[in-house]
């Protein structure tokens, strides 16, 4: 994912910069930070013209986090994915199961550790809502996630959730957005939710 910091840029600079980046990639996500709503609206026009998915979130500093998602085309994705069994692990909470919070937190740490030790690895692990704490807060799990990344697992954390909980970036893996999350879910054969 490419990130463009366009805070302080006057229109049309954010749009011109974003257009250049979009043209340089075949598919994927582009995050553009802008400091006013008008710039976000101009980026929305770019998204529409370039047939990209558009998402905007206003963060606590009053900045706009715009994600543009360029998709090389759905038919292509499907044909690639047919042959391989794809699994995605979804971690939507920093606790595993219902019951005592402390126990839940210990269990989720255990789950990630066990995942790391497993021979069969998932294609991706997606963290959202309070699950984002696991990828962004110092804990033993961060090391486990780094190991999983080394093994080729795509570790993704929802950017809006990181913003919401006040994190600048995850300690392991990459930032993602709702479009990538949806795409990962749709192209998965198996979705595992502990």
């Amino acid at each position, binding site marked *: 994912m490419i990130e463009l910091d366009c805070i302080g840029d006057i229109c*049309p600079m954010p749009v011109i910069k974003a*257009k250049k980046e979009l043209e340089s990639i075949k598919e994927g996500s582009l995050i553009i930070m802008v400091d*006013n709503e*008008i710039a976000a*609206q101009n980026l929305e026009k770019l998204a*529409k013209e370039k047939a990209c998915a558009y998402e905007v979130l206003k963060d606590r500093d009053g900045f706009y986090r715009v994600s543009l998602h360029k998709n090389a085309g759905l038919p292509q994705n499907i044909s690639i994915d047919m042959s391989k069994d794809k699994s995605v692990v979804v971690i939507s909470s920093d606790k595993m199961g219902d019951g005592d919070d402390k126990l839940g937190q210990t269990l989720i740490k255990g789950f990630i550790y066990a995942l790391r030790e497993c021979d069969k690895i998932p294609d991706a692990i997606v963290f959202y809502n309070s699950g984002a704490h696991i990828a962004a807060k110092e804990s033993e799990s961060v090391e486990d996630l780094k190991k999983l990344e080394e093994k080729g697992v795509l570790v993704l954390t929802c950017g809006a959730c990181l913003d919401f909980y006040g994190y600048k970036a995850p300690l392991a893996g990459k930032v993602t957005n709702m479009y990538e999350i949806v795409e990962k879910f749709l192209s998965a054969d198996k979705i595992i939710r502990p």
Partner: protein
Amino acid sequence: MSVLGGIPKVFDENLLIGYDSSDDAAVYKLSEDIAVVMTLDFFTPVVEDPYTFGKIAAANALSDIYAMGGEVKAALNIVAFPEKEMDTRILGEILRGGAQKVHEAGGVLSGGHSINDVSPKYGLSVMGVVHPAGILPNNGCKIGDKIILTKPVGIGIILTAHRLDAADSESYLEAVKNMETLNKYAADVMKKYPVNACTDVTGFGLLGHLGEMVPKGMSAIVQASKVPVIQGAYALAKEFYITGSAQKNANFMKERVRLDNVDFAMKEILFDPQTSGGLLISVPGKDAGMLASELKDNGVDAHEIGEIMPFKDFDIEVIP
């Protein structure tokens, strides 16, 4: 408008046009056959060359007198300039450009005021006269009127692209030529016709200013393909040399305008803020052809772009 809300209103029957209406200038009646038209405008440089900037700023300020149906009599300079940081010869060039346009308008430059400021700004306070019966309000359009535009649009897009080194010199020079051109020549011809309403196209863009002209109970129908556009502006809009101001104008007009079938680049042009833009003239349909051709004969790039109809769904409807 909310900033003006706190100013107490004093009624004076001789103030024919004040800031209650969104008009181009104030008009104050002195006698049964004479009223003064007063306006002022100034801004930061829109082009690099100081002499050209002076001409553009003056043409822009003078334009409001013409949009009211008046003639220019006298003008005062409004100047802000960083006296220590910048060569005062630059200021001399700005003033020379401004004076040239005031004289071309048939007016006399009669003084002014300057202050020391971090960035240069220039404009004019202009006084003109009009016969009270000859005042052209913004919103006097009548059903059956045709709308005539006297300068091509797209100036904002060209200036933006020029700052980013993306506009070719021909487009830029065409934009400059249009900004420098006084609306006097269009106004001189217009006055011979039974014009119902007139305004000039500036910061709110073509549709923003047209929106000020359409009275309640009527709709303006604009044909996008008939709107004259400065060469190169369409291609630049397509490359996203678009402005924040155009988007603000579009947001402001959102509820009042329908332009579903107009492509993205043309939408940008229709909301593009203009500097020293042309006149928008609303004239009865039967006179429109004659007025447009007489304007063209006098070197004005006039085009009929739409018409006024009974109200239907939106104040302005743009068709491709």
